[in-house]
């Protein structure tokens, strides 16, 4: 069979089970777009490559399977970088295919030439500069294997234009690349972990993204129920233990409900699963869980001992490790610890002022959750609204909450929501965003208008870079610099300009009714929710402080911190 490099890429993607890709064409990548005409793969046209990267991330985060974005050489590749870096920090399997100038022109500062390979080394699991069409037979399956194996992550395949155009004879196609089998679980380590758990009086499970990546949520729940262990989650672990379960504590860390951080102070054994002791979760790492021995389960050997030295380490896929651990752990009621958990939960709950008013941060989050139900997928942008959602939205299943955790990328929410909606067309998708974040990838409203997918944008609008303003108030003596927006766009009008319905919840007699109507209508919609301009997210652990040092109200001031 004779084929071009471009057609071969699409054939190999198809064999990987890819039915939708997203990207933007440009000079060097035109051969690949030309080949799309003859491929069953659907292409979703983004309006900026960063949008394409996050649309693909939304598909990958919603499904757990690698997703693909395209970008041309030069600015196409540089525009993808933020979305690739974001996928690296959150361990999302993303396959970015970029075009490069023709081989003979590489190194000549050709038009739209940039060293994509060099630029993406530190933000990918691995990357390739493909030097012949025949190499694609190895590189494309290998790219999917690397992206999906072990701790997932992004890869970049950079293909020169003349390789896309190269015609080769292909005699057979390779098997699709799939994830390597996870490493064998160390039985002895599992036995020691079970021993520590059995001996613990105040154990806590702390789960992260690795639990969701491994599909280990049901096992977490079984272990928690069997041994009566309360379960806290990092931001990226939310939903893996259903909110409302008596053993579910919610999020740990900088903006956790007070009782969660207090319980971790008291716990004598921390079973950390698929989490990497990120500073937003641990606060000052050396003072995190000061009374606990640590059992750390992680698929990535370099995470074990990186921040805290565990008493027992199990380098394994979270599901495999928990499967091995479950039968070895004694069933226990731990009545005293359970009672302590309930007492602290009652004594130091999350304060949610205004939760019954739809035009407050907690009110809009709770109302949307009630109206949308458990079926909805929620994406957030980054900032105060993200933390309010993390605190107050009752996430009840894995892959329900899609958020930029490690990189904290404003502009993530809208394109990720589009990607999630493309991957899960039967689910409503809610994008909580802020007036700062939304403007960072606003152009994707055009993509949304074109795809007409079921994305509802909930804009928590306070006319500020709210989390920046909050930090300036709390840690920089109230010296506000560049955190107040003087020009405030009419967002519903902007949405309408793109062909999307837009409503404003301010100054209406029945905002909840209007919200319900907007959420019920088919297709995309933007809901502008005016919120108090200077409301802070509490509690807040000052950056660099220990998690016990939570600021609960606005009166406390600390020194400027990193």
């Amino acid at each position: 069979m004779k084929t071009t490099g471009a057609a071969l890429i699409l054939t190999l993607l198809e064999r990987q089970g890819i039915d939708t890709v997203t990207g933007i064409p440009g000079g060097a990548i035109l051969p690949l777009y030309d080949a799309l005409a003859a491929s069953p793969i659907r292409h979703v046209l983004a309006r900026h490559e960063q949008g394409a990267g996050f649309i693909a991330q939304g598909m990958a985060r919603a499904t757990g399977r690698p997703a693909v974005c395209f970008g041309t050489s030069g600015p196409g590749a540089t525009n993808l970088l933020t979305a690739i870096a974001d996928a690296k920090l959150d361990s999302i399997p993303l396959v970015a295919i970029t075009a490069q100038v023709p081989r003979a022109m590489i190194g000549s500062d050709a038009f739209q030439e940039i060293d994509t390979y060099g630029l993406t080394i530190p933000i990918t699991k691995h990357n390739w500069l493909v030097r012949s069409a025949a190499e694609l037979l190895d590189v494309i399956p290998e790219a999917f294997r690397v992206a999906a194996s072990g701790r997932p992550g992004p890869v970049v395949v950079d293909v020169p234009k003349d390789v896309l155009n190269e015609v080769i004879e292909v005699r057979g196609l390779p098997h699709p690349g799939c994830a390597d089998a996870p490493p064998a679980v160390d039985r002895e380590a599992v036995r020691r972990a079970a021993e520590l758990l059995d001996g613990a009086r105040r154990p806590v499970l702390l789960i992260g993204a690795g639990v969701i990546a491994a599909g280990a949520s049901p096992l977490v729940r079984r272990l928690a129920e069997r041994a009566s262990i309360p379960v806290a989650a990092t931001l990226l672990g939310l939903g893996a233990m259903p909110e409302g379960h008596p053993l579910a504590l919610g999020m740990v860390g900088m903006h956790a409900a007070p009782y969660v951080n207090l319980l971790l102070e008291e716990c004598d054994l921390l079973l950390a699963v698929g989490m990497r002791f990120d500073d937003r979760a641990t606060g000052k790492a050396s003072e995190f869980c000061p009374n606990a021995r640590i059992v750390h389960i992680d698929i990535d050997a370099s995470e074990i001992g990186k921040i805290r030295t565990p008493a027992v380490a199990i380098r394994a896929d979270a599901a495999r490790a928990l499967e091995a651990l479950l039968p070895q752990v004694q069933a226990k009621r731990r009545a005293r610890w359970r009672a302590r958990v309930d007492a602290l939960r009652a004594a130091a709950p999350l304060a949610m002022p205004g939760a019954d008013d739809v035009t407050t941060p907690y009110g809009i989050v709770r109302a949307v959750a009630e109206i949308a139900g458990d079926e909805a997928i929620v994406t957030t942008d980054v900032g105060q609204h993200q933390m309010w959602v993390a605190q107050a939205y009752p996430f009840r299943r894995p892959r329900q909450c899609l958020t930029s955790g490690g990189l904290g990328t404003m502009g993530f929410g809208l394109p990720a929501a589009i990607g999630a909606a493309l991957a899960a067309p039967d689910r409503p998708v809610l994008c909580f965003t802020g007036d700062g974040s939304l403007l960072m990838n606003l152009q994707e409203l055009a993509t949304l208008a074109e795809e007409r997918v079921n994305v509802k944008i909930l804009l928590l609008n306070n006319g500020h870079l709210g989390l920046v303003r909050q930090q300036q108030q709390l840690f920089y003596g109230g010296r506000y610099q560049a955190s107040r927006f003087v020009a405030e766009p009419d967002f519903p009008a902007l949405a309408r300009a793109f062909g999307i319905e837009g409503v404003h919840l301010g100054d209406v007699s029945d905002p909840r009714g209007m919200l319900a109507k907007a959420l019920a209508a088919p297709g995309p919609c933007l809901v502008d929710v005016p919120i108090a301009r200077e409301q802070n997210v509490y509690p807040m652990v000052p950056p660099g402080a220990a998690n016990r040092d939570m600021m609960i109200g606005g009166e406390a001031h600390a020194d400027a911190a990193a």
Partner: protein
Amino acid sequence: MLTLPPDAGSDTPSATCPTVVLRLLVRNHPGVLSHVSGLFARRAFNVDGILCVPVGDGARSAILLLVRADGRLEQLALQLAKLEDVLDVAPAPAGGAAFAAVAGWLEEADRRRL
């Protein structure tokens, strides 16, 4: 896993740490050295010496890295092991001799203006 000298602690300034040699087995194709050196550079970790030669049929290379055994080295070794093109990472206790030999050759070459 890499075992470091007992006096290597995270609060020892790296300039006063003993040097150790790591031996890497890598695939021999363009970009591998960038992946390896990038890991060190972005952690502000200096590489005192580097030697690289093809081995076997040339599909693979051995890299010797002369580095300071400060408290970060074990983490770096774990990160090196994660690179797709790095097939093995191991300490090479006798590797210092290779660097000494090259240093001797350079001295000799300079003396004889080679």
